[in-house]
């Protein structure tokens, strides 16, 4: 039975379109319960988008939570598949504290996760799907790509203490170059030690324009291999319609306890925050006792509300 477009609201429409897209690429639907044991989130607090989880005691006395995140559950409930790939997509509600207001909000997410023998082709496919997901929402989008291996190597040259590294990474995410210098001086780090990182953060823009400089800078600072990975990921867009929509930007950071390698964020003109976020999360897999590698992303459908009101969404 066909469902007519007019009976769906805009979020449902785009949600179904994305599901169609992922399914066409061989991803199968992953369904899950709304609840998960709270322990999973208390052990991985930093992975969550927001602090705070809605909890309740189940009839058997276990402390449960309304899901604030989908990826953790998929990782926890899966098992390693040596030599294989598991490609999943989901369309779920999560419950998070909104950063802008005090209180929980129900948010709808559609996303993909690819786990197993993840290689550069899988990462390229995730990036391609991310760009295609954004294009389904609006033609006027930007997909911003970064590499946490490069960023981590440049931060390692400045500081090894986790607290200082976190402060530096926070500044990197804010394009706050003066803040990086301030953190360094406060912790007695030699003047000038932060300059390579500041130079790296200053190199943002279309891959063709910035990639040669990034590769040179990364090679000088012992991160050439990672830069080659980033170059390969960016090159996967060469000659495609999405090429002009891709930017390299190292302010797309992530918690390195969970993420590694390629990280990316998606933006749509007129929507104030990122509508898509993803990357490789092998470190999360290790923390959860898994040996597989993984890459994935989520599209935040609630963020698209404004766009749909103005009728700019495709279809």
């Amino acid at each position, binding site marked *: 039975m066909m469902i007519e477009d007019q009976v769906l609201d805009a979020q449902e429409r785009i949600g179904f379109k994305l599901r169609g897209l992922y399914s066409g690429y061989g991803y199968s639907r992953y369904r899950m319960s709304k609840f998960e044991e709270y322990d999973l989130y208390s052990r991985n607090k930093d992975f969550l988008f927001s602090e705070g989880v809605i909890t309740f005691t189940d009839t058997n006395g276990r402390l449960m939570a309304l899901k604030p995140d989908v990826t953790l559950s998929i990782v926890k409930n899966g098992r390693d598949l040596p030599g294989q790939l598991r490609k999943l997509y989901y369309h779920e509600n999560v419950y998070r504290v909104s*950063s*802008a207001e005090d209180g929980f909000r129900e948010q709808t997410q559609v996303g993909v996760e690819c786990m197993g023998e993840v290689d550069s082709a899988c990462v390229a496919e995730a990036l391609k799907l991310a760009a295609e997901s954004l294009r389904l929402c609006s033609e*006027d989008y*930007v997909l*911003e790509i970064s590499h946490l291996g490069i960023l981590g190597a440049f931060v390692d040259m400045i500081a090894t203490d986790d607290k200082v590294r976190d402060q530096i990474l926070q*500044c990197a995410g*804010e*394009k*706050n170059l*003066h*803040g990086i210098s301030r953190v360094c001086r406060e912790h007695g780090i030699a003047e000038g030690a932060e300059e390579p990182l500041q130079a790296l953060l200053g190199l943002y*823009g279309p891959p063709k324009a910035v990639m040669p400089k990034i590769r040179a800078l990364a090679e000088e600072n012992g991160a050439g291999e990672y830069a080659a990975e980033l170059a390969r990921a960016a090159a996967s867009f060469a000659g495609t319609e999405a090429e002009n929509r891709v*930017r390299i930007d190292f*302010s797309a950071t992530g918690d390195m306890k969970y993420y590694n390698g390629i990280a990316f964020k998606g*933006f*749509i*003109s*007129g*929507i*104030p*925050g*990122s509508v898509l976020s993803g990357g490789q999360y092998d470190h999360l897999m290790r923390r959860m006792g898994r040996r597989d590698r993984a890459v994935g992303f989520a599209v935040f459908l609630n963020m698209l509300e404004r766009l749909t009101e103005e009728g700019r969404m495709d279809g």
Partner: protein
Amino acid sequence: MVNIALPKGRLGEKVYAMFAAAGFECPALLENSRKLIFDNEAAGVRYFWVKPSDVAIYVERGAADIGVAGKDILLEYRPDVYELLDLNVGKCRMAVAAPEGFRDNPDRTLRVATKFSRIARDYYSSMGRDIDIIHLNGSIEIAPILGLSDVIVDIVETGTTLRENHLEVVETIVPISARLIANKSGFKFKTAPIERLVSEIRKEVKAE
């Protein structure tokens, strides 16, 4: 057109002078009128005055592409924005102040009156000190005088108000100044005009 939220008041006027000197002037902005939004199409800028504590909200929510906000506001509300420049104006410090001769008794929970609950909580939790936050919206200095709190966490510029009320700074938490912030998404779609503006304004920033 780059939309710019400026903080109303003395700091905003000082910051506008930097924008004007950098080539982004809009003289109508300083006229005494009821207008709320001011354009200079040739320079590609549109200004509006907002309450200083609201600038970060306008920028985070995308109503403004860039804006100028105090570091105190950015630390307290942690908006998801880029912090592109330290303008080195509006300089002051976030500090702990207490009645003259105050000695902290670590056996007791420290009562802290402040408008900046998050900054105070983060500061004391980094030292492992148990505190009771008393959130006030103004006239913070009166709290320890009336015995409402032991200390205050507040912005200190010259220290005159503190001295007149027999209070003194016991600890500086962080230096504060005005910062040029940008909406993350707006920056992606207006990169060239925002970069041009930042680069011109950087020339107007006086060294520390």
